């Protein structure tokens, strides 16, 4: 069992590696496509902007990895910006084209009275559709978020967790072997470790 964490020059990815290390997974942090192709699970982390991340991803030429994950049913987990990148477009960078594995738009959290942006901190989520990442986790778990854009999925059957921050947000999705979450499991204490463990065991 080896987990490949896709390194395309994004910021703080050390904590993702550390968290998988903590739950006993063998981890490879790599931007090398051949090395990643030898992994059993793939993780796409990321903080920063949609456009800049797509630029880096395009330059690093890791797109074949995504195709491989789709065709070979390799369990794949996008975290935070890594969730957003799986979609086609984001209001954050209107000219950029995402990985387009899934359909939907990434929208800006509307600013209004009392709503601070970024959405930063621990928020409780409502679990839906029996997501495999949340198996065994008590209902309405608190998870750690830091983001200014959110997913409004076109197909709600793949949404496994939602929360509300002035607007209803889809914060976790699951479709076949593709999983993604807007929150940071690697920063969500014991609950987060449990989610990563669930992913590892898929």
């Amino acid at each position, binding site marked *: 069992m080896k987990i490949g964490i896709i390194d395309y020059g994004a*910021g*703080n990815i*050390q*904590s993702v590696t*550390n*968290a998988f*290390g*903590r739950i006993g997974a063998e981890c490879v942090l790599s931007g090398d496509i051949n090395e990643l192709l030898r992994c059993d699970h793939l993780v796409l982390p990321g*903080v*920063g*902007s949609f456009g800049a991340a797509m630029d880096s991803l395009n330059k690093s030429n890791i797109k074949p990895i995504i195709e491989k994950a789709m065709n070979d049913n390799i369990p794949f987990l996008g975290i935070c910006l890594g969730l957003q990148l799986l979609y086609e477009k984001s209001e954050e960078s209107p000219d950029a084209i995402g990985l387009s594995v899934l359909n939907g738009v990434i929208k800006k959290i509307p*600013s209004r009275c009392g*709503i*601070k*942006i*970024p*959405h*930063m*901190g*621990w*928020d*409780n989520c409502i679990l839906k559709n029996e997501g495999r990442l949340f198996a065994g986790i008590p209902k309405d778990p*608190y998870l*750690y*978020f*830091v*983001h*200014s854009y959110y997913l409004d999925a076109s197909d709600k059957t793949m949404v496994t967790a939602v929360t*509300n*921050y002035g607007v209803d947000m889809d914060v976790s999705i699951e479709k076949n072997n593709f999983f993604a979450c807007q929150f*940071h499991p*690697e*920063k*969500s*204490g*014991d609950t*987060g*470790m449990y989610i990563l463990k669930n992913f590892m065991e898929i």
Partner: protein
Amino acid sequence: MLTKRIIPCLDVKDNRVVKGINFKELRDAGDPVETGKAYAEAGADELVFLDISASLDKKKTVVDMVRNVSKNVFIPFTVGGGIKSIEDIRDVLRAGADKVSLNTSAIENPDLIRKGADIFGSQCIVVAIDAKKNIDKTGYHLSKAGGTIELDIDALGWAKKVESLGAGEILLTSMDRDGTKEGFDIELTRMISDAVSIPVIASGGAGKAEDFFEALTKGHADAALAASLFHYGTLQINDLKKYLSDKDLPIRC
């Protein structure tokens, strides 16, 4: 619902927590990793490590500490103290910190906020504002060097400016209240929090559980920070969170 955050602050000098903390279970209360883990287990929502060492190899010591904390503590943490350049920010984030806190360096070089936010994202750029009440009580100004040097910069104007430069959060300390245990400066906290649309952490003056309630309600703060109160065990984090939750504040507990 998004919860209000309770954040203990740890002063660290040469890789040692300066004020020893009163956790009986701790083998080594001076170890940043042990202390951070204990706070995380007690229910802290985030941690702030403030490095106050002045040694020549300060940077290496900090980066080593961040790396160790990051391997053992799985809640978000911010690192501040002497971060002066994009390279410093990069090194600390790469070692595993979630956010950096800029203080004097941001006042001297506001462009550091903008560049830092552009490269690493606003979410990891916290600006620490040390504010003091004006003598004529009409407003607040900035201070530096632990409140010993007064600056002719309006705190409210500076808060709006750091937001426009791309800061993702403000760590607001009342230097008048810091260390007094007389409660947070509610007027200051509310003024800044209402003027910006980024989260504000109230700091300085916490003496009892009620003070946190006031800061998070009347003060409109998104989070509240304290140091010695938690270190010396005067107030336990889990007791504080239960108190706030019983008063119907959104709290993770």
